[in-house]
């Protein structure tokens, strides 16, 4: 910003270029910076979650900044994203949350697992910072907790929708669940299994698990397929295990359908499993060619330019920054100082979804599951892998 010494010159100039200044001043004022955070696992076996989350946030921020910044109230801000790696360690999550907050950050995307999100919660609640975990533990979102907003569709919400669709369209009757022997996947399996039973499906196997880092899935799948299910659910599966699991199941002669409720990259699955990957059903993401908007295409280009290769999971994570910033704009400058203003805005917030061709609304939901609006209304896009791409099966919406 330039400092004019003489008031008259300033006034004269303002008058003469009144219209033109609007854009220029918008740009000049964007020297103000709004710091936002990403806290998640960015190294080790689960780097596929937090690493992509951080990269997504940075790319989206880059697009905002290229457009001149984000206008909140009267001011325009450049977005600066600070990523902190919690190493999937609850100690690291707590320290990382403190670190972001000490940088003056009040809005944070992540963490990515139950244990890190629960640990970060103590810091978030005490410091009135808002965070957007990708973890399904209900105590994060139910009162008295109030600072966490679930950034995606929970497996227990999307599971029944997929199973119902499969019953109606593929006539499945017997279902099996398989997951990694780890906290988050086991929880998702238990809830998925309960939901399937509720729908009247016969659950033939829901006790089989494999260890993190398994290379050969033949042994465990042999037993699962031995129960002759029509459908196998891979609950909370780590992106790195999907391809090998599908491949092994097909090689063992399994001909039924398979699905997972967490976001996955179709290209990576196809590369490992080949033809066997076709028909694999995945919920999440919104970057499928048929349904994505031009804006999503632009985002994909940006992400690819920044990080070398597109990852479909980014199509899910990008909803976080989007709704975060839209809500900040709606809640106004007060929310930059105090997250109470942000939380007050959650209930009535209706934003626009720029990522889908058909547009639609972005809202906060979860009143039924959590008793308060603490979930982002990411559209439930159920899709199947087809030759390294996704083809959408149907799009659903979350309950309020």
């Amino acid at each position, binding site marked *: 910003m330039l400092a004019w010494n003489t008031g008259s010159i300033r006034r004269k100039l303002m008058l003469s270029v009144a219209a033109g200044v609007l854009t220029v001043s918008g740009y000049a004022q964007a020297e103000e910076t709004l710091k936002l955070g990403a806290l998640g696992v960015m190294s080790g076996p689960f780097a596929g979650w937090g*690493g992509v989350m951080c990269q997504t946030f940075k790319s989206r921020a880059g697009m905002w900044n290229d457009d001149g910044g984000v206008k909140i109230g009267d001011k325009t801000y450049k977005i600066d994203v600070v990523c902190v790696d919690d190493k999937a360690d609850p*100690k690291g999550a707590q320290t990382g949350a*403190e670190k972001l907050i000490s940088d003056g950050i009040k809005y944070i995307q992540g963490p990515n697992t139950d244990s890190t999100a629960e640990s970060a919660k*103590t810091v978030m609640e005490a410091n009135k910072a808002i965070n957007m975990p990708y973890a399904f533990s209900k105590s994060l979102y139910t009162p008295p907790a109030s600072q966490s907003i679930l950034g995606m569709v929970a497996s227990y919400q999307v599971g029944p929708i997929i199973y119902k669709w499969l019953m109606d369209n593929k006539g499945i009757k017997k279902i099996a669940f398989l997951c990694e022997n780890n*906290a988050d996947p086991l929880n998702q399996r238990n809830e998925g299994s309960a939901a399937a039973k509720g729908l009247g499906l016969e659950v033939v196997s829901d006790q089989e698990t494999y260890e993190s880092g398994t290379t050969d899935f033949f042994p465990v799948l042999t037993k699962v397929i031995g129960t002759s299910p029509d459908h196998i659910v891979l609950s909370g599966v780590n992106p790195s295990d999907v391809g090998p699991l599908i491949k092994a199941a097909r090689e063992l002669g399994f001909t039924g359908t398979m699905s997972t409720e967490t976001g996955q990259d179709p290209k990576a699955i196809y590369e490992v499993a080949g033809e066997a990957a076709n028909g694999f059903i995945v919920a999440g993401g919104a970057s499928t060619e048929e349904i994505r908007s031009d804006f999503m295409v632009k985002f994909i280009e940006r992400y690819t330019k920044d990080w070398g290769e597109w990852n479909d999971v980014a199509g899910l994570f990008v909803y976080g920054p989007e709704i975060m910033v839209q809500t900040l704009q709606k809640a106004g400058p007060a929310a930059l100082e105090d997250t109470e203003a942000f939380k007050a805005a959650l209930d009535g917030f209706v934003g626009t979804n720029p990522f889908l061709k058909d547009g639609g609304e972005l809202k906060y939901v979860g009143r039924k599951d959590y008793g308060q609006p603490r979930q982002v209304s990411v559209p439930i896009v159920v899709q199947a892998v087809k030759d390294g791409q996704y083809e959408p099966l149907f799009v659903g919406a979350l309950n309020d």
Partner: protein
Amino acid sequence: MAGGSSHSIAKPIALGVLIALGYFIAVPLLSGGSGYVLNVVTTMAAVSFISFGVWLTFAIGRINLAQAGFALIGAYVTAISVAHLGLSFWVALPLSGLVAAIIGGLIGWPVLRLKGVYFAMITLCITEACRLTALSFPGITRGAQGMVDLPLPGDLSLFGLVIIPAFEKGARLPFFYLAGTLMMLGLLFMWLLDTSRVGAVFRSLRQNEDLASSLGINVAKYRVVAFMVACFYAGVGGGFFAALQQNVYPTSFQVIDSVYFMVYCFVGGLEFVIGPLIGALVMMTSFELLHEFQRYQTVIYSGLMILCILLMPNGILSVVRRRSSKAKGANNA
């Protein structure tokens, strides 16, 4: 072994007082109440407390990778005690250490016959087995769902006199002081142990168990005692973290934690009681300082760790001591 133990006790005591003053007075003043700094220092203190146990097992010549497993046991004991049994945190914390020590004694008795890499790897298996046990028995541990929303420590009163007030939600200083107290007590006990006759026996075990045995020392008993003390430290430390994070999951302490506890001992220097503390201080501070490098953080951090081992294979303190003894030699000459 213990920084100049043979000469006098004045120096170590002065050092201890200096650390205590630095921790309890300088850090809170200098940090300006920054939650971040306090949290890092709190974590560092509690982690070095746990690492003292690993250090002790090193002292008897064993590479202990089971420490995270016993910390997990301690964390669950604290969580179950305060959430299900309604015990006070101040009872649960020592109880966690005790339970971990007893389990450690039972497992340690046979396992301590192993040496070298076998012991290292079997203890690694123990850490994994603890995680899998926590997952496999949801009736006790709530399994994968984890134990969440644990109550904060209440007040500790004796004969109606409040010694420690109840911890308030969001207050960082109580945990900071608790971690510091644990660290100082842990250090003091380690130092007393190391300079005592028992400490000398432990060292003789490391150098030659057969010789110690021929001198009439009950080798099996001593090494189990050392291992149980180590497990006690792990249990108490684990209980502390359960209270700090207000939750426990089977993944709260994993093999990688065991590895880092060991790293802190090495980086500080295995021949110094204070080694784990220095190691944790240096390593954790450098990790935090490297946040600036974002996605290169871990690469640079591990690169520094390798460099540290290359340049100071016997730990940071060994270099400090060499310097000071050189200076002393120059003075005498």
